[in-house]
């Protein structure tokens, strides 16, 4: 492995390993419309989900819920770019938390994103979420989207499971969801 100081930095052996970012689980769905991380330990400060997924159809939202709760305890707000436009929006008391209209995806163009859940193990606070996700399909059309969102789950229960659903279309081969714990 080569390293040319000043111009090229190649991968190095003997890495330093940061000690506070842990992989809890990875899911690679090839079908189905949702993935669930369950039995999440309460030993971390925050959770982060990183994903890259493909689905069979365009135009579906990414929806997230916690602990199997399908009541109206969720809220979300977002700003997003689509095509050449910028817009914002929000929703209160949906049955699942919507992180925008991001999943304008297909079996060719991955939708990617990062979901951060802060203080997920608290038993005295509502849970706040932020997301950054997007999809580009090499067009200027509105199906290319970039979304920044905040979310709220109005529950003081510790989060022990987390579900991400497309709202209808099935995941396709090449999809990866990984849950991390941050201590």
């Amino acid at each position, binding site marked *: 492995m080569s390293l040319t100081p000043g111009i090229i*930095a*190649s991968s190095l052996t003997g890495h330093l390993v940061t000690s506070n970012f842990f992989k809890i689980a990875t899911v690679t769905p090839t079908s189905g419309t949702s993935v669930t991380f369950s039995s999440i330990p309460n030993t971390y400060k925050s959770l982060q989900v990183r994903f890259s997924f493909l689905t069979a159809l365009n135009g579906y939202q990414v929806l997230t819920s916690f602990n199997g709760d399908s009541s109206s305890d969720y809220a979300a707000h977002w700003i997003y770019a689509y095509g050449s436009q910028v817009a914002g929006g929000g929703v209160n008391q949906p049955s699942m938390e919507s992180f925008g209209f991001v999943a304008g995806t297909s079996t060719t163009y*991955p939708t*990617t994103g990062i979901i951060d859940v802060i203080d997920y193990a608290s038993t005295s606070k509502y849970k706040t979420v932020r997301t950054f996700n997007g999809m*580009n399909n090499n067009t200027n059309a509105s199906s290319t989207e970039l979304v920044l969102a905040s979310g709220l789950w109005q529950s003081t229960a510790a989060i022990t499971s987390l579900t991400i659903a497309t709202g209808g279309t099935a995941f396709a081969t090449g999809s990866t969801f990984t849950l991390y714990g941050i201590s």
Partner: protein
Amino acid sequence: MATATYVPIATQTLSTAASSITFSSIPSTYTDLRIVIVGTTSSSSVNLNIQFNGETGASATTYSFTSITGNGSAAASHNATNTWSWVPTWVTGLQTSIPTFYTIDIFSYAGSTYKTGLMTTSTDINGSGSVERSVGLYRNTSSITSLSFTQTGSVTYSAGTTATLWGI
């Protein structure tokens, strides 16, 4: 037992000006890559260009991106299709003295699908500046084994520019 992961693969701080910064021989053992760059350039208001797997120059057409930007007074969106690099700096650009801060996340970089990345750019030059978020597509199903931050013409990244590649 959960696995600790967020590994600094390589870090480079330029000791002299350079026209590009390249990370090569990237191992395929991680799920995602993250790059953090804080840098300046020899000219003001220039782009950071991101290319993969040894592609250089402006001949490629396999890149596209969409950005949302704020410049202090308005929000806007920008698109580029069939272009030769990802450009997370659309509004203010790299500067000669005040550093610009970038993060680039590349998801499933070792997989066999097209590659999508999320990028952030933060620039404030005391009177103007911008905050930018971008999504990029690289229409190539090959694993990403190297990535480069390039410039055009005689522009160079200044000494002191720092780039770190992380595996997640």
